[in-house]
């Protein structure tokens, strides 16, 4: 039953003894949820490993069309955002909620930069005829390559690489957007005065989520961009 009482300025639900007890349960729950996230991406990583073993040349050929500089910038942006979310938590602990909200705002901004760069990467590929799987337009792509004087595509199943590219980066992108919404929600609550030095569980949890999203990208970047 979710009645609660206030201890040390924190709403503690009836079934918990004290603030610490409630927080430790929440932390455990968040980490368990992160395990499910990692296992979900794990399926994609296993599939990637399997097909990379079968068709190494096709993966190398696909990675040609990914600009490692853009991927690298995005990696830096996300690593920096992991830092700013920690700054946000630091200010929560110090009870400086406006600064905490500002740090979360910068984190969201990093997410926006990441997504904008991804948008340009995606649209450029669509322009070249690079769609996932069966939809990949090999004739159009080779036409573009011939005009630019670059070597033509040899693999007939290049779409499979881009099937992975769009599935992995797409699912990751969805998580970035989710993370940004959650960060926005934390920012709003911080400004509304929901949190104090004893209670900022939501920021903590969303912070962990954001780190995991960041971590997944750190694996995706070499696997997709640098594999050639």
């Amino acid at each position, binding site marked *: *039953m*979710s*009645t609660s009482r206030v201890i040390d300025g924190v709403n503690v*639900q*009836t*079934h918990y003894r004290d603030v610490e*007890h409630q927080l*430790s*349960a*929440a932390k*455990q*729950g968040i980490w*368990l*949820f992160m*395990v*499910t*996230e990692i*296992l*979900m*991406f*794990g*399926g*994609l990583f296993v*599939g990637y490993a*399997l*097909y990379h073993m*079968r*068709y190494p040349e*096709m993966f190398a050929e696909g990675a040609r069309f990914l600009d490692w500089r853009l991927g690298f910038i995005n990696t830096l942006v996300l690593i920096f955002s992991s830092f700013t979310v920690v700054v946000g938590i630091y200010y929560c602990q110090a009870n400086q909620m406006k600064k905490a909200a500002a740090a979360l705002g910068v984190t969201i901004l990093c997410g926006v930069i990441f997504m904008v760069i991804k948008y340009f990467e995606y649209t450029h590929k669509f322009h070249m005829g690079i*769609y*996932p*799987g*069966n*939809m990949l337009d090999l004739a159009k792509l080779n036409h573009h390559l011939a005009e630019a004087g670059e070597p033509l595509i040899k693999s007939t*199943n290049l*779409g*499979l690489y881009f*099937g*992975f590219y*769009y*599935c992995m980066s797409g*699912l990751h992108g969805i998580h970035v957007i989710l993370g940004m919404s959650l960060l926005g929600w934390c920012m709003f609550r911080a400004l509304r005065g929901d949190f104090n030095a004893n209670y900022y569980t939501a920021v903590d949890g969303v912070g962990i989520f954001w780190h995991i999203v960041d971590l997944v990208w750190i694996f995706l970047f070499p696997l997709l961009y640098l594999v050639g």
Partner: protein
Amino acid sequence: MGHSAHGDNYITAEKGLMSWFTTLDHKRIGILYFVSVMSFFLIGGIAALLLRAELFSYNAAPNVGEIFKNGDVYNQVLTYHGAIMVFMVIIPGIPAILGNFFLPLQIGAKDVAFPKLNLLSWYCLMAGAALAVTTMFTTRIDTGWTFYTPYSIRTQTAVSMMVVAAFIMGMSSILTGLNFIVTVHKLRAPGMTMHRMPLFVWALYSTAIIQVLATPVLAITLLLLAAERTFGVGIFDPKLGGDPVLFQHFFWFYSHPAVYIMILPAMGIVSELISTFSRKVIFGYTAIAYSSLGIAAVSFFVWGHHMYVSGQSELAGTVFSFLTMLVGVPTAIKMFNWIATMYKGSIQFASPMLYAMGFIFLFAIGGVTGIILATLALDVHFHDTYFVVAHFHYVMVGGTLMAIMGGFYYWFPKMFGKMYNEFAAQLSFVFIFIGFNVTFFPQFILGSMGMPRRYFDYIPAYQPLNRISTVGSWLIAIGFLIALYTIIDGLINGKKAPNNPWGAKTLEWQTTSPPPVLNFDHEPVVTAGPYEYK
């Protein structure tokens, strides 16, 4: 929420339908699950009766009409029977109904760790179920509950929608599992050490680990299947060098552990029932508790036995065969311990105990035929025949459904504060138990005669045994109708239940029937194990 008057219980504490749909009380959420899962069971059960009715005769037999216009309709009904029973009945069944209600009570907690997530998990199941039912009014789905590629990529039926439904229901399962793990770790009453927890809690805990670790893999599999159908990403498509068997690997990496999501909590219930109705300390408490964890651990390494004939390497097949047989060890540990508990006990043949003993009998048959199917050479002969169908119905229906019925009769007085008609409950057992064997035992024989599963028709030689099987399905239906009667009659006319009608020792029996909103009037302090019968 205001102060509730003294003597109020969780049912009377609040009034009105909305108080149920917005409740954060784990007991009320358990009841919500009960009503919804039983409704799904009714739909899945009607589908089963229709399938059996169709198979009463071979299609060209004289003097009988056909139930279905053609094989397509049969395939659809078969798919809905499987998908509903698996995703909407057996997987949420015990954890979400009885687990929700009794896990906090059995460890002396006031609620589960995250009451809001608990309610969200019910809404996820309902949203998924609504979507699944909606597909019945579109192009329907005919892939079987396993959604095997490449057929599931090519068929024009509503696979994507069904897959999204299963994804959302998976969310529900993850949230329930996550909640239970944290509850067990964080909310045990003073003195309730891990080794004093009732075995039902141990079973739910092991189940929860599987729910959290396996379900995400199903999630990504289903997402990829939906992406395959929508964008043609090629990962399961041989045209681009993709591998349809990879889908089977992914699918069974979840779905085999999921089989233990179905059976582990059932084993937990049986441990409670056997001890209570034998008036004896459970034999081998630690062995039973850890064998649950053992089954959960092994469950992740046996998925390949679903692919013996799918082009998997012989070495992989041999390894999976060995690992699969390993499951027999912790399972047998439980079986022997239950029998040892009953030995020289003072056994009371109340209806819950009858169901528990029915479980042991049927699960022994289901388990032993599982070893037969795990054997490579035999499986080449038996795969995709009715032998497999009979095997998993013995485990899932004979096992899980028997336990859920036993558990439900056992805890009914606590849940609703009323007693049911014992004679009618025993009668329901007789019909379900006999009907079950009449339905499914002939299917072992049909399978070894070579009758393939999932077909709309068969050769005349299979007809006599199929007729017996269909008659059995009617007996089961009568049994469940009687069970439904005992529930309704108990709710309306039942005598007031005492706090501890069975003289059991676990914590839920120390509080009032039905329990108060916060479960216990005073926080219990535990000083002994759960089955200290003198």
